[in-house]
């Protein structure tokens, strides 16, 4: 028999209607991109509707830019593995960090017109810190692009049944053509569309899943029964069904240290570091019409964001009791199937879709996932491209060439980054839960960055030398601790505790060394720090004179207060 390109026995059986739904989405996305490019004469329509984008649109784009691999696959995988403590990523992690961004950092970003992290580093600390940061940023983007590509590949594999190696090449080709055809030219529009498609598919998935296991109570009973049947293998049920003290997440046996680890490691260092220095997302807020709208972007985004766990973590928990393979995996078995031959927690969401969604809704779900991972990877590649061609190549390797030269280099960098991502995707695929891997990466790169950033913003004495020394030493400390636990016999922490510990170490080492080095080196003169250090930035640059004219709950601070109160309630209930 002639081997068929598409194998008969695929993980997910999509039919014509499913592919039609997928095709319509791509027509919309590419159509918008085309319209944006063609309407150069008409660009007023686009730019004005762009600039007057209301805060709900930029707020949704803000969380949608992040609602990709991390949220959907990582959270469902962790939810399947350890249950409700996963919600800390949202209720202790993301939400307080997003509110902090809106209340404290955003006025500063908007007023000082800093447009990227490397740009801030260059202006605040000069060339060495800029070079270090650009290099580590470019490397991080390549590694994270690999995570997105791996997850994109796992969907293509589930649909077409090709071997994973071939699948990754196919998925990379899809992303490259998406970028080439203009998929990034209307990122905010696409992200808002993506948000609705994802909610429209994950909400039915969760509701049908809950219906199948007998409601919330039925799910709790089944999780309890499974945990009782496999003591020592499955995390005890009470730890899975209560978010605090979250030992299963932090890996600490002691509940006091678990709470500290989660609050400081995850809540403060990792989440604040991620959300306040991630300009792929911060830029969404820059698109809004005023400083108040920019501040409200992450605050409004916090409202839908606090309910995302119900669409990502809960399906994972359902999958752990409803999907045979995941239940088997959790009980210590080695089921086969899934994206890489063996079933992993990463497959929880896809397998649940296979088991509960009829064709039609299945197509919608596939569309949402493909769109999210593709856009996520495209954003990584484009961020890499910008930093590589301007911050690295243009500033250090080949200076002073005409713009066309850098555009050409940029295009080559896009292709090169996509090829490299095929290799970094293989690293991501070796982790049973991509969330462990991502948090480890954030610990290496974002935690020291956050420390340097926040110290440099609020302490004008911090010197240029301290800028790069802090970054380098923080990253080295985190990598050393991680390697010591992974390959040496220093200590072991299950769950994501190692990532939290590495991040906290990076943060502390960075702060301590930055302060020490600052004491013995020369700071910059105050006048060069205007717009870069809080105390040197005039108040007019970071406040909105018209804010008091708005109704009370349209102002950033009261809105943030409401969001904070709601998160406290959610923490108390679950």
């Amino acid at each position, binding site marked *: 028999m002639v081997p068929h390109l598409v194998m008969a026995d695929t993980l997910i059986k999509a039919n014509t*209607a499913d592919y*039609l*739904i997928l095709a*319509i*989405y791509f027509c*919309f996305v590419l159509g*918008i991109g085309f*319209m*944006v490019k063609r*309407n150069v004469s008409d*660009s*007023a*329509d*686009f*730019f*004005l*509707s*762009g*600039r*007057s*984008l209301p805060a709900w*649109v930029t707020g949704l784009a803000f969380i949608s830019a992040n609602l990709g691999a991390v949220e959907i696959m990582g959270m469902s995988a962790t939810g399947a593995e350890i249950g409700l403590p996963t919600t800390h990523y949202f209720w202790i992690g993301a939400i307080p960090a997003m509110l902090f961004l809106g209340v404290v950092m955003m006025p500063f970003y908007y007023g000082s017109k800093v447009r*990227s992290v490397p740009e801030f580093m260059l202006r605040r600390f000069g060339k060495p810190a800029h070079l270090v940061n650009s290099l580590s940023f470019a490397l991080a983007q390549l590694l994270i692009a690999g995570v997105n590509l791996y997850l994109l590949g796992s969907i293509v594999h589930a649909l077409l049944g090709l071997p994973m190696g071939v699948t990754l090449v196919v998925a990379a080709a899809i992303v490259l053509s998406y970028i080439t055809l203009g998929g*990034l*030219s*209307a*990122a*905010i*529009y696409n992200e*808002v*569309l993506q948000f*609705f*498609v994802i909610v*429209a598919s994950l909400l*039915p998935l969760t509701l*049908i899943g809950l*219906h*199948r296991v007998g409601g919330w109570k039925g799910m709790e009973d089944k999780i309890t029964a499974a945990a009782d049947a496999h003591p020592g293998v499955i995390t005890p049920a009470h730890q899975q069904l209560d978010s605090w003290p979250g030992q299963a997440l932090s890996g600490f046996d002691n509940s006091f240290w678990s709470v500290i680890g989660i609050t400081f490691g995850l809540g403060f260092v990792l989440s604040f570091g991620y959300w306040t220095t991630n300009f*792929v997302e911060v*830029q*969404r807020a*820059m*698109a809004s019409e005023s400083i108040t709208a920019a501040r409200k972007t992450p605050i409004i985004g916090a409202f839908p964001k606090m309910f995302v766990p119900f669409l990502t973590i809960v399906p994972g928990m359902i999958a752990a009791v409803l999907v045979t393979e995941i239940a088997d995996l959790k009980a210590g078995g080695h089921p086969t199937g899934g994206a890489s031959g063996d079933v992993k927690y990463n497959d929880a969401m896809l397998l649940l879709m296979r*088991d*509960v*969604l*009829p*064709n*039609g*809704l299945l197509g*919608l779900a596939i569309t949402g996932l493909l769109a999210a991972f593709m856009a996520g990877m495209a954003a990584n590649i*484009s*961020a890499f491209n*910008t930093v590589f061609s301007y911050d690295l190549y243009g500033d250090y390797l080949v200076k002073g060439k005409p713009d066309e030269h850098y555009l050409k280099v940029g295009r080559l960098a896009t292709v090169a980054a996509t090829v490299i991502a095929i290799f970094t995707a293989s690293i991501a695929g070796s982790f049973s839960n991509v969330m462990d891997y991502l948090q480890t990466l954030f610990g290496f790169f974002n935690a020291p960055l956050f420390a340097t950033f926040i110290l440099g913003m609020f302490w004008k004495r911090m010197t240029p030398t301290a800028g790069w020394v802090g970054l380098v030493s923080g990253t080295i400390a985190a990598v050393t601790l991680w390697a010591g636990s992974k390959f040496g016999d220093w200590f072991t922490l299950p769950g994501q505790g190692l990532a939290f510990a590495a991040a906290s170490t990076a943060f502390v080492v960075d702060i301590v060394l930055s302060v020490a080095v600052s004491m013995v080196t020369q700071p910059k003169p105050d006048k060069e720090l205007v717009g870069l250090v809080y105390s040197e930035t005039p108040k007019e640059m970071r406040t909105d004179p018209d804010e008091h004219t708005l109704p009370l709950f349209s102002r950033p601070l009261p809105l943030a207060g409401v969001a904070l109160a709601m998160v406290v309630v959610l923490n108390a209930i679950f």
Partner: protein
Amino acid sequence: MAGHSAGAMDVRNVIGALLVVYGVILTGMGFMADKALDKTGNINANLIAGLALLLVGGGFLAWAKLKPIVIPDDYVPDPDAHPHGQ
């Protein structure tokens, strides 16, 4: 001041159109295609989701219709504005 509406560039119209198209497809599937009741636990999931999508999508279209974004005819774009990220 004279002006015209943002039309297809209004993101609410784009969202509304996509959700309505999906709503039509899923509602149709709910009536005609295999309902896969063993998977959904005896619920016609496509039909319910399809109707919900029609409702939400229709809501967005109506919202854009009732409160259009008006662009002044003498508007000149600000070259520094980058509404779509990097």
